[in-house]
């Protein structure tokens, strides 16, 4: 009995926090838009009992999903989001791996401090951190002042409101999600493995590629998914740092919802986004599981 309860609690949360909201969104995606409160029809009216419920079901259709296929905006936005997510995940890996590596190789006494420094930015609001990047990257911002002051450039660079700024923002924001899992795998790694590789004829560099990288693979995969999954649907960073040419599905969804007041189409966009995300999430879970099995747990 108690055991059943213990198992039931997490499932209940999953049901309440994931499945129910998803079903609501799915239902809206099958509805039609209307100028009313709420701005779609049909709404569920249980006063008419079973017949009312059947009428409600009968009024749902897939029209909004077919609509999404008629305009290239949507798949372009999905593709562009995917592209931005892939590129920024790669960039985050490029920046994050050396940091994680440096931390894992640092003196043991320093590691908690370094770890703290990575986590520290989380203690301030995400929004404030993104806003401060606006201050750094703008035309008259600190970066341009510094570069002009140093004489590196003569004219200020336009970085804010471009895709470059979006990449900077994403890499900055999600860096800890990349660093922490990689650090965890690197820190566990036995340093004598690298000596063994060198002893067996590897140069430092090839030891890194043949031993360090494969052994941190699970951390790299975990980190990449942790960055990739939220980046696809990212809205705040492209809105604040991106320019008008930054096309992302999060923004399209916003426009469907707010500008067109078309909740059903917005919901359809969200449902498809979720389906796209389910694939990497499943792969991620599988990686985690394989990792646990490999460690014999």
């Amino acid at each position: 009995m108690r055991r059943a309860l213990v198992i039931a609690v997490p499932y209940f949360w999953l049901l309440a926090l994931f499945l129910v909201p998803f079903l609501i969104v799915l239902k809206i995606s099958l509805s039609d838009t209307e100028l009313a409160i709420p701005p779609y029809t049909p709404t569920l009216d249980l006063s008419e009992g079973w017949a009312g419920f059947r009428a409600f079901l009968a009024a749902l259709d897939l029209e909004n999903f077919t609509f999404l296929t008629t305009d290239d905006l949507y798949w372009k936005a999905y593709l562009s989001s995917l592209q931005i997510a892939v590129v920024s995940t790669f960039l985050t890996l490029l920046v994050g791996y050396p940091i994680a590596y440096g931390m894992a190789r640092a003196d043991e006494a320093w590691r908690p401090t370094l770890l703290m420094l990575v986590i520290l930015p989380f203690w301030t609001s995400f929004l404030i951190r993104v806003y401060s990047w606006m201050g750094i990257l703008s035309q008259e911002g600190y970066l341009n002042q510094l570069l002009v002051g140093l004489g590196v450039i003569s004219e200020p660079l336009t970085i804010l409101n471009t895709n470059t700024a979006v990449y900077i923002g994403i890499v900055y924001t999600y860096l800890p999600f990349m660093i922490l899992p990689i650090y965890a795998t690197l820190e566990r790694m036995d340093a004598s493995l690298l000596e063994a590789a060198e002893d067996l004829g590897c140069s430092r560099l090839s030891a890194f590629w043949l031993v360090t990288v494969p052994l941190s693979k699970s951390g790299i995969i975990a980190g990449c998914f942790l960055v990739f999954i939220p980046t696809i649907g990212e809205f705040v960073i492209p809105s604040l740092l991106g320019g008008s040419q930054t096309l992302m599905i999060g923004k399209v969804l916003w426009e469907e919802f707010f500008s067109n007041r078309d909740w059903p189409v917005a919901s359809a966009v969200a449902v498809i986004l979720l389906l796209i995300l389910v694939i990497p999430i499943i792969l991620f879970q599988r990686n985690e599981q394989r990792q646990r099995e490999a460690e014999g747990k």
Partner: protein
Amino acid sequence: MKSTLAPLAALAVVATAAGADEVRVYNWSDYIDEALLEKFETETGLELIYDVFDSNEVLETKMLAGGSGYDVVVPSGTFLQRQIAAGAFQPLDFDKLPNSANLWDVIKDRTEQYDPGNAHSINYMWGTTGIAANVAKVAEALGEEGPLNSLALVFEPENMEKLQSCGVHFLDAPAELIPAALKYLGEDPDSHDPDVIAKAEPLLAAVRPYVLKFHSSEYINALANGDICVAIGWSGDVLQARDRAIEADNGVEIVYNAPVEGALMWFDQMAIPADAPNPEGAHTFLNFIMDAQNMADASNYVYFANGNLASQPLLEEDVIGDPAIYPDEATLENLYTTTPYPSKVQRVVTRMWTRIKSGT
């Protein structure tokens, strides 16, 4: 960001809605003298909870979702009209609004097209959509002859190409930019005909590569700091930017012009949601705002014209005397208004706007 927080905020508001001694007002950001809020609380003994938004769309979504928990909201005319149609607002009880006698007929006549009989709303502020310019930087890019008071400044690619390096922002508001483009092309700015609307696209697309950003509030700071040199924006916002630059004493000089081709005139209306928890308090707030002195204080602070005739003698000279705020007769003649797009046309407009902005 607001979109993600809005449902939570709404939830919090509903959860704590405590009834008769609280009035919850949802207004545009940077849109009131905060001293007035304190004055309201001392005068009426009601507790005022004041939240802000920066886009009509965010407000509209809350109105259409229902249960926003607000007692007074401030949509613009075209949005108001649609929300009234959706049943989002309750008719006002003018017995409780004795100060409504202060309202200005000139404005009431124009707002009637959005709110028939002015039954659901009162005018708070009105203004024009026009062109902001950093005088020195535009002169540097285009020479002294730069047409600061013409839409040619922002709709002619050769001008925009030169302005690109110093930065141009457009409002992220298709309902403002498309009518302006149509006006520049000599078309009816209030056209709801998709074929006419489509004519705006090539014009906007041609200058779009030189637009740094489409955004509806960032330009205030960007202008004041000198980050950008030209913006299409709302009159009062630009004048706020001008004053911030003067305060900062950073050598940035901003001017606002309603374009000679004709400017869009817009109205921000105060209304009471149908499901307002405290309609009584809401009426008290509206009556307070329509007091001549209070309205004058508000305008003197935010540099927007108001729809309150009785307040005009109390306005400062740099407000009532500034044609950028209170246009002269000739300019007033030249102002136009727009009505909301039907939802089919709205989708065409949004799609076109996305295409223009993203360059796809």
